[in-house]
């Protein structure tokens, strides 16, 4: 039987229904669908897909288990490398990673590796408590992990599996980082994140929430008080504003605030949950990355009549995943390209009502290789909007950086760390994830956590040898 050129489709909530709820949009494969999709895999000897996976999953091996209907072995295979498969299967940009290199993508659609990963991860979660790997005897070393996003959680899990005692310090009241406060419920249900976090707890990792490093305790104090090494995975949580007039009007939110109120604080369940959010009839989201798509889709679910993406480049340059753009379009999000606000105007009470926008055209390619947007003089016009969400990017939060003397930073203000090891300018202090790369992806953060765990393990063993020798 010739291999189908198309991925086995995954069932979804229809757009007109899903924009009225916060339940997950993509519903996941059934066993039959998963096995059918697994059949498409050619089990290539060289497995080009693997070079696209930042955490080195043995992709054909796990797909082969699915083919045989042995889902338990499939998930075990994934978990040898990836401690958060139910998350990655949902939010990884597979089209730029494993699936991009898949042999099948030369002729048609690649194997739906992400959907298969999600399927086996969900299969395991549905069966209740997952099996724990056998842990080595304790090494006696203690490691502090700062931040419980994907970088911190991965580093913590791997270090625990190497026998080290790990404590995670998290500023917010729940662990998960962007997975909890940023990415919406309808794309990544929070119970899935917490199930994966529980797995990491069961590996022996202690997670201390409500613990702001740099305020409650500093990195140096951790090192002085019994921790042998520190991993910093504090993410890129500082929202950028545009610095234009009217930005502090009521109804102008950073994407972080808009999403945090909704996801972390569950404002969509207000007043049962007590954190409010205000969404008007016409919502303008400035920017076109994943964060912007999430904000625009969230606005619809919170009752906006119109939700608009306002972006100064064109459709081609949008940094968001194709799938997310597609989802947003289906749900009725409007796209306004080659335009951006230069001023916000409010009513007497100070609520935003309108923006002055200016049109752009594309010029020569810039440092990012994308064509540079150039404002068109005299092209100003008005656009009505009673809620504005600024989603133009995030930078590194300085709380830890400012309180850790001797920690070298890059020009962008991120931590200067070795790409392969996460080692920083301070011995015993490692870093990875968005705090090093700037806002990137879940899987890159996990990859960095993984590499750092290996390097921390080597550092600790070396330290052990020296103190015994």
């Amino acid at each position, binding site marked *: 039987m010739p291999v189908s050129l198309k991925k086995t489709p995954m069932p979804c909530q229809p757009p007109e229904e899903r924009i009225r709820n916060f339940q997950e949009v993509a519903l996941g494969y059934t066993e039959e669908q998963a096995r059918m999709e697994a059949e498409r895999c050619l089990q290539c000897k060289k497995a080009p897909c693997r070079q696209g996976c930042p955490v080195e999953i043995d992709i054909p091996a796990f797909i082969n288990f699915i083919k045989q209907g042995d889902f338990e072995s499939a998930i075990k295979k994934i978990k040898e490398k990836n401690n958060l498969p139910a998350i990655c299967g949902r939010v990884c940009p597979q089209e730029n990673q494993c699936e991009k290199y898949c042999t099948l993508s030369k002729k048609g659609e690649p194997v739906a590796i992400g959907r298969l990963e999600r399927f086996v991860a969900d299969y395991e979660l549905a069966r209740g408590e997952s099996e724990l790997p056998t842990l080595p005897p304790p090494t006696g070393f203690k490691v502090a992990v700062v931040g419980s996003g994907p970088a911190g959680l991965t580093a913590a899990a791997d270090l625990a599996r190497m026998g080290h005692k790990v404590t995670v310090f998290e*500023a917010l009241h729940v662990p998960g980082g962007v997975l909890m406060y940023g990415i919406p419920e309808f794309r990544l249900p929070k119970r899935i994140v917490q199930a994966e976090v529980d797995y990491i707890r069961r590996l022996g990792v202690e997670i201390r929430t*409500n613990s702001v490093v740099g*305020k409650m305790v500093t990195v140096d104090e951790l090192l002085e008080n019994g921790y042998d090494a520190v991993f910093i995975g504090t993410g890129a949580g500082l929202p950028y504003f545009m610095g234009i007039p009217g930005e*502090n009007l009521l109804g102008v939110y950073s994407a972080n*605030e808009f999403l945090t109120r909704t996801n972390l*604080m569950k404002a969509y*369940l207000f*007043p049962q949950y007590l954190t*409010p959010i*205000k969404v008007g009839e016409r919502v303008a989201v400035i920017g076109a990355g994943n964060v912007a798509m999430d904000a625009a889709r969230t606005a619809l679910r919170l009752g906006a009549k119109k939700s608009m993406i306002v972006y100064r480049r064109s459709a081609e340059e949008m940094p968001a995943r194709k799938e997310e753009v597609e989802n947003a379009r289906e749900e009725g999000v409007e796209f306004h390209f080659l335009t951006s606000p230069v001023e916000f105007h409010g009513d007497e009470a100070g609520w935003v009502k309108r923006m002055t926008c200016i049109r752009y055209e594309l010029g020569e390619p810039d440092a990012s290789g994308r064509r540079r947007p150039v404002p068109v003089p005299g092209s100003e016009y008005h656009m009505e909007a009673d809620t504005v969400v600024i989603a133009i990017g995030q930078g590194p939060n300085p709380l830890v950086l400012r309180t850790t003397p001797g920690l070298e930073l890059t020009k962008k203000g991120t931590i200067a760390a070795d790409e392969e090891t996460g080692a920083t300018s301070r011995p015993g202090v490692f870093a990875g994830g968005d705090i090093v790369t700037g806002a990137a992806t879940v899987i890159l953060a996990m990859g960095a956590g993984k590499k750092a765990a290996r390097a921390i393990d080597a550092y600790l063993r070396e330290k052990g040898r020296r103190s015994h020798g």
Partner: protein
Amino acid sequence: MYRIVKKKELAKNIKLIEVEAPMVAAKAAAGQFVILRIDEPGERIPLTIADFNREQGTITMIFQEVGYTTRKLGELKEGDFLADFVGPLGQPSEIEKYGRVVCVGGGVGVAPVYPIARALKEAGNEVISIIGARNRELLILEEEMRAVSDELLVATDDGSYGRKGFVTELLDEVLRRNGRVDRVWAIGPVVMMRAVAEVTRPFGIPTIVSMNPIMVDGTGMCGACRVSVGGETKFACVDGPEFDAHLVDWDLALRRLNMYREEEAQALAYHSGEGGNCRCQ
């Protein structure tokens, strides 16, 4: 979980709680605040650190019951637990030996002024304190303030105690009487802080206020707490909460505080209507 070890009613609708949080107490300083959440559906609310005890590992907060969360907090008893408690957040007050300083506290704002006045006194300053409230019953921490001040002046709106009038009138007199005042701290309702700024402006006295915008995370992650100071946008939770009173955009601060008026009323109505254990009217 964080245990409430002490609770006291200081005045009508003004309560004090002391919460066990040793790591926070170890670092707390005057001028900083905490964020707490009572339970899972709860909102994260900021409260200033009114006192701390490093030996016992406790933090004291004094709050006014103004809406759903503070009322519910007021119903908790000694031995009850808070789900979340994080701090110390924000920058500590800059305590130095300035010379002669005036500390102004209005209403529940006397609570956050107290540790500042105490620290200023300990740093060798001459401390003149002015505290006020709507009436005698609502005045808090009078004895505590007296103990850390060289001079204490009291005003009530209705004249039921101390001088009849606003704290700003007393402040104006103090400034006129004392040739030199090196610094003024003022904490209270936004309108009071703004009025203080106007009183000290002609004298050119550096004046510090503690801003209380609506917050979510308290760590610089969301920008809900933006304030405009000298034309620049600042995040009160990490850059503040204390700022130069003469540079604050007060109109903006007032507007932003009222952003969720409707929702706050709705929350109160919803939860009192369900007839559970909430006794809010």
